[in-house]
Every structure is written in structure tokens, then in C-alpha cells.
């Protein structure tokens, strides 16, 4: 019992080390890049108008939103395409890391609960 409490303490400490040494620095970097990309996206693309149009179209047929978005992306300049892709890529990485934190938290909790 006593040894299990030591195990729990160690496992949580190691989880925190992993979180702060490996994941948080990555998170900060990703957020910084996301802000940068969003800044340029806001400057180059009239985002509000794009979403207004998408909303109007979705009222008729929700499936056409994807077609509209793809069309808008296809017709825009290379620079804007790159920025949109960078935004999406960073978004995916960000979500992946959130998934890793949650997944590892759940696994660690299970390990700690095992007697």
C-alpha cells in the first residue's frame, strides 16, 4: 500500500515533467505561430465576408458549404493558400497535442488506480 503511494507520486511527477518539458514548450511555439498566421490571415482575407457567404449558402444546402469553401480557397492567390494551409496544419498539430495530453492523462490515471 505504502509502495503504491510512492508509485503514484512518481508516476504523476513524471507526467508533469513530460508535460512541462516536452508538451508545454511545443504548445507555446504552436500558439505563437497560430497567432502570427491568424494575424496575416486577418490582413489578407476578409474572413467575416467569407463566413457570411458560407452561412447564406448553408441555409439552402449545408453540403454546399464545403464546395463553397473549397472554391474560395482554390480561387485565391498562392500566398493566401499558403497561409490558410499553415493555419490548418498548425490547428491539426495543436489538436494532436491536446489529444496527447488527454490520452496520456487518462492512461496515467488508469495506471495509478491499478493496485
Amino acid at each position, binding site marked *: 500500500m505504502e509502495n503504491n503511494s510512492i508509485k503514484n507520486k512518481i508516476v504523476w*511527477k513524471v507526467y508533469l*515533467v513530460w508535460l512541462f518539458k516536452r508538451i508545454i514548450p511545443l504548445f507555446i511555439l504552436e500558439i505563437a505561430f497560430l497567432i502570427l498566421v491568424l494575424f496575416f490571415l486577418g490582413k489578407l482575407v476578409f474572413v467575416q465576408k467569407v463566413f457570411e457567404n458560407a452561412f447564406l449558402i448553408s441555409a439552402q444546402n449545408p453540403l454546399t458549404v464545403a464546395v463553397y469553401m473549397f472554391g474560395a480557397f482554390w480561387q485565391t492567390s498562392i500566398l493566401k493558400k499558403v497561409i490558410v494551409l499553415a493555419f490548418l496544419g498548425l490547428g491539426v498539430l495543436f489538436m494532436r497535442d491536446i489529444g496527447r495530453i488527454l490520452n496520456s492523462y487518462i492512461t496515467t490515471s488508469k495506471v*495509478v488506480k491499478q493496485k
Partner: protein
Amino acid sequence: MDLPNSNNLRDDEILILSQEDPAYFSFLVDKYKDAFLRAARGITKNLEEAEDIVQETFVKIYKYAKNFEKRPGIEFKSWAYRILINTSITHYQKLKKERGNTEYLDPVLYESPSLSTNKDLGLEKDMKEGVEKIIKKMPEHLARVLRLFYFEDRSYEDIAKIENISMPALKMRIFRAKRVFKNLAEENI
């Protein structure tokens, strides 16, 4: 998500996997925590201190896993024990600074240069063998008190009775024995 069975994994493989998912590290904790606690308790003679040392040791093992990955050919067990011993010594030195003269760990025995440079230092058994080798070279009456105190865990009172000497005389004998031990250990470097 559940972790796979650790039976097919080597310690170094678990250490690498734990860098991606720290939950894997629990396999190493399960495998070594009892042995580490015994070893740390053997050094500190105090359960609470031993637990602190073991926790610190495991965290260091995780933090410095990269150092181990860079040194192929070194066994995980031996590397981990070395960290345990070094952590115990650091812990002892810190306590000594904070509380003055700390009795629980004998620096003469555990900080002896000939032992700390020993490749197999990490293994408590090897350490005891190293100590025993030096003790054998000592005068019998000094060797006897050290053996009783360190290997048989006898109290001062017990040893004084066995040796049929007074407490101050025993303390003086142990002090002299440690000094002789230290000199012999340094000669063995």
C-alpha cells in the same frame, strides 16, 4: 487507452517509449521501486528519507533518459543504480548542510573515492563487497566494530557489550576505524 504488456519490452525500450507517453514509465517504477527503496533505506537507515531519494531518483532517470540513450552497451539497471547512489549522496550532503552533522549515512563508506569510481557502484551488493575488501585489510579490532555497525546493523549499545568496552571508547574506536578505512580506500584508487 490501455498500455500493452511490458513482459516483451526491455528496460531501455520502456524508457524510450515513456518519452512519448509517460504512463509507460510506471513499468520501470513497478520493477525497481522495491529494490531501490531497500537500497536507499540501507544507506539512509530512514524510511522517509529513502522514499524521497527514490522519488527523486526516478524523476532523474526520466529527465536524463537522453543521456542513457547516448551510451549504448550500458545496462539500464546499472545506470539507474548509479543515479540512486549519487542522489543519496547529494541528499546526504544537503541534509548535512541544513542540519549540521547528519549520522544516517556514513560519508567515509559511501563517498570513498575508490568506491565512487567503481563501475559497478550502482549495485548495492558490489558496494558491500568493495567495503568488505577494504575492511579485511584493517586491524581486526577496528574491522570488527565496522562490520557490526554497518553490516549487522547493531546499535552502539550492542557493540559496546560485545566488545566489552565503554560507549566513549566504542565511539572513539569507530572514529578511528573510519579514518583507517578512508586511508585504505584512498590507497586503493
